[in-house]
């Protein structure tokens, strides 16, 4: 077996890593991520130019990758540099169009891959608590098109996205799998009100209220009422991306902590000479390696035709990074002592991101329960 990246992917990772090392310092990141829009249009365009977005999509739709490994490489690098730019939205919405889009809908992909169209998945709702099937937003037929009504919660960059992918119920009761449909809705469609806000870990999100939002027949993505499977499929891409992002952030938090143990002196010696801390650092190392294996499993499984095998690997990865990421965040802060809880220390922002990843697309409890429910 060979776990090395092939030449093309290594080149992409190197180029991306080099750009971020040079142009995306901790100060710049915090300035833009905690700033008025939560990101930088310039950085986002540059990431697209380097190919970070294109790598998330197969050649057939204008990308140059799209395999699990590609997604893993890109998001691990983003995690390593704590990038707050809206690539997750591009992945989720772009892959939904790739999977189920009509020829006309696929034309939107060019703008997404080029970094010109900002995208957001609008699925979570105030009471769904990570459940994919709890959709209360409705879409009813009106003439040729549809009318959408409902509320969407914590939509990443939802106040700035030009293209929203909205889950809505076209039949059935809240909680049913059947009857969910997905719609491509312009972010500035009449009837959408967005309440935007900054996130605790940087970046933006918004609460969306949809009041009689009218869209044409061509807004429906995939088959009417069969959106659950598509939603699960694209959230799967998101689980892989977030898991890889977490892994990148963990590696960095681990590295920073190790450096601190080597250099910070107390009682006249480097604190890394204390066995109590050595053992915990050793545990951090082995936990991060477990997380890496979980991400590799998920990346390998993302295109598995066997739904149970695929979804179990994805849930296993998200469960693992939720648990391990939180552990790494808490241990890294603790071992840094007082400086670990300051804004000034880049690590503190990594810790916030690591913990907040557990609050996206299902937390460790959610995915452990899902893993068990998926059965053998």
């Amino acid at each position, binding site marked *: 077996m060979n776990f090395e990246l092939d030449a093309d992917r290594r080149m992409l990772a190197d180029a991306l890593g080099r750009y971020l090392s040079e142009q995306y310092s901790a100060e710049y990141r915090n300035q833009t991520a905690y700033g008025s829009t939560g990101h930088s249009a310039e950085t986002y365009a540059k990431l697209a130019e380097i190919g970070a977005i294109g790598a998330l999509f197969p050649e057939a739709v204008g990308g140059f990758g799209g395999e699990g490994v590609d997604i893993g490489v890109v998001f691990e690098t983003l995690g390593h540099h704590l990038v707050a730019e809206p690539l997750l939205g591009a992945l989720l919405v772009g892959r939904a169009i790739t999977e189920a889009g009509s020829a006309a809908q696929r034309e939107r992909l060019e703008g997404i891959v080029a970094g010109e169209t900002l995208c957001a998945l609008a699925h979570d709702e105030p009471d769904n*608590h990570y459940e994919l099937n709890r959709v209360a937003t409705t879409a009813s037929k009106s003439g040729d098109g549809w009318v959408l009504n409902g509320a969407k919660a914590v939509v990443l960059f939802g106040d700035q996205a030009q293209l929203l992918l909205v889950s809505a119920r076209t039949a059935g009761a809240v909680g049913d799998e059947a009857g969910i449909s997905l719609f491509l809705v312009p972010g500035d469609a009449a009837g959408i009100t967005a309440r935007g806000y900054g996130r605790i870990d940087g970046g933006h999100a918004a609460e969306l209220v949809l009041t009689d939002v009218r869209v044409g027949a061509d807004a429906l993505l995939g088959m009417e009422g069969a959106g659950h499977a598509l939603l699960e499929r694209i959230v799967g891409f998101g689980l892989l991306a977030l898991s890889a992002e977490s892994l990148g952030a963990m590696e960095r938090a681990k590295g920073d902590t190790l450096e601190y143990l080597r250099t910070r002196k*107390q009682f006249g010696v480097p604190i890394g000479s204390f066995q*109590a801390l050595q053992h915990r650092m050793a545990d951090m190392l082995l936990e991060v390696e477990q997380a890496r294996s979980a991400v590799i499993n998920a990346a390998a499984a993302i295109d598995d035709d066997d739904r149970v095998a695929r979804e179990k690997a994805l849930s296993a990865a998200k469960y693992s990074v939720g648990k391990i990421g939180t552990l790494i965040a808490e241990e890294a802060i603790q071992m840094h002592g007082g400086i670990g*809880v300051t804004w000034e220390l880049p690590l503190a922002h990594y810790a916030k991101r690591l913990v907040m990843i557990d*609050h996206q697309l299902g937390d460790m409890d959610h995915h452990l329960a899902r893993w068990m429910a998926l059965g053998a």
Partner: protein
Amino acid sequence: MDLQFTPEEQAFRSEVRAFLKDHLPPALAAKVRAGQRLTRADQEGWHAILNKKGWLAYHWPKEHGGAGWTPIQKFIFDDECALAGGPRLVPFGLSMLGPVLIKYGNEAQKKHWLPRILNGDDWWCQGYSEPGAGSDLASLKTSAVRQGDHYIVNGQKTWTTQGQHANMMFCLVRTDRAAKAQSGISFVLIDMKQPGVEVRPIRTLDGDAEVNEVFLTDVKVPLENLVGEENKGWTYAKYLLTYERTGIAGVGFSMAALEKLKLIASRVQKNGKPLAQDPQFATRMAQVEIDLNNMAMTNLRVLAAVQGGGVPGAESSMLKIRGTVIRQELLSLIRRAMGPYALPYIEEAQFAEYAEPPVGPKEAATAAAAYFNYRKLSIFGGSNEIQRNIISKMILGL
């Protein structure tokens, strides 16, 4: 064994409860329950209410204006206060400096400073930690050199909580550089409102700025502001820290947090049912509740020993470790109960004055920030690693 509180103690609990019902301002309690940030006026106001009743410095002896309560009475008071949504008392003057002055200060110092603590005339802060000397306190470098009738102090202090409000600081300084680390340290009182004292805020990861760096440049400290003997400050510092660590167990605060968690879990819906009925979340809540009850009993056992004449020593380290871990777990569960709503962070929503409707459940505004902010519990007051060292040395003899 008799595990019941005595009838007198139970009567005392009723008295405290009745007092809180009548005198704790509901708006203040609501702020505390919501985890919103308190203003200086909030804290001073609550101190004044307690002082009027004679319950402010409840662990001081009566002759100095304290309540003269037993350890069990103090525990009951803390418990009831926390459950009623009472704010934590600002400890610097009351629980840290006060006991040191009472035990080691001279008559003039007691007469001058103790009443001022009670009346709120001074806002004290603590000058212990330094950039190179956090948990390794004995390596502190701030120097004090005698010059006529005063010391000249130079150095830098850090993690000075609420130093931005303070006009006075009790401070550890090095008065003998030649002596062994612990023996050349003195305990002095510094007027913050004089030239040479500069306070700079340190922003913490949650966005707040409650801690500070304090720069001391040629700061004058009159000799009468030396507490106890020169070069004996380490003894007083250790005495003070023992007091600090007992408070950090925070049983009452954990009890209140548990109540809040249960309330939230009964409201937040997961898969159409309250989160409290989710088997995994319910398991986590049950585990932390059992841990908390065990810790509360451990706390009572230590208090009973103290009541019998013992001094809390390494036991306070035990309480600090368990107490902080449990509080952090409770804050973690409150954060996790918010689901995706842990992500939004609206600075203004940390304050009671925020008039907009909440984003998500109303507890979400502060849940994640509180979780991140209170990672400090296991770091300050002597990190939990240092507490484990103390236990290994003092209890286990290793």
